[in-house]
């Protein structure tokens, strides 16, 4: 008698992106660990004297936009089978808020570079651009995946497993940011 075929635990995309996210979490854990130790061992205080202060208030607004984007993605997931049009609208809002976050971050970088905070200006600058920059790269990549999912949705070709794969990537970007904001900005 042939053995009964076992149902797959999770779609391949979900498993693949989960492994990727776990690996990336370790990368950021290493960054945060190194940053925390260097920050507490700085002889002249942190941030070093003469270096611009990071825009805490403006970035808090940006953080709220990113969290809201994650919330809209959850709502899009819930509406996927019930109301496709509503799900697509929510996905579009999530993408819009995510794009706002990335553009706002870019504007913040331009302002900070103008104030003299560069990769080589201090360890503060080096860590800031390394950690926030790596996160921004992930945000842009995840945004690209969300846009790809949206285009497939619009064409009526998106399946739930593909949406879940895009979601996991975006939730990683959204969930990681408050930790980075707390460790790097505050």
């Amino acid at each position, binding site marked *: 008698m042939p053995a*009964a075929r*076992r*149902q797959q*635990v*999770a779609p391949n995309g979900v498993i693949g992106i*989960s492994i990727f996210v*776990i690996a990336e*979490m*370790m990368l950021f*854990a*290493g960054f*945060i*660990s190194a940053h*925390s*130790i260097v*920050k*507490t*061992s700085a*002889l002249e205080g942190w941030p070093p004297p003469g270096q611009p202060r990071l825009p805490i208030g403006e970035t808090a607004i940006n953080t709220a936009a990113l969290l809201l984007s994650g919330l809209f993605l959850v709502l899009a997931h819930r509406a996927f089978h019930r109301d496709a049009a509503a799900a697509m609208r929510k996905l579009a809002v999530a993408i819009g808020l995510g794009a706002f976050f990335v553009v706002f971050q870019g504007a913040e970088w331009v302002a900070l570079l103008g104030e003299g905070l560069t990769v080589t200006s201090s360890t503060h600058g080096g860590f800031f651009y390394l950690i926030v920059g790596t996160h921004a790269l992930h945000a842009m990549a995840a945004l690209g995946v969300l846009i790809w999912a949206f285009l497939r949705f619009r064409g009526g070709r998106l399946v739930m497993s593909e949406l879940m794969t895009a979601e996991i990537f975006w939730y990683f970007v959204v969930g990681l940011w408050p930790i980075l904001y707390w460790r790097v900005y505050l």
Partner: protein
Amino acid sequence: MRRRSDAACTALAGFVASCLVVGQPASALACAVCFSAKDEANRDAFLTMTAFMTLLPLAMLGGALYWVVRRMRAIDEQQSLPAPGESVSSSD
């Protein structure tokens, strides 16, 4: 006879290598991160981050394993349910 002398040479080399490792503890401390913490906050950062870096992968793997086990149980339960209209007690 030749095999016995080879074994003796290997044992002697192992003994010398062990003596060198045990006798050179100062060299073992000369790594990039072996320095004393500056103050209380720095020491706390070292300890916290050591715990963080140790526990994070374990927590992630544990979480993934828990999720897979839960998911497999759910699939098993789903598959063991009788199809609509199918008798549960049918033995033939």
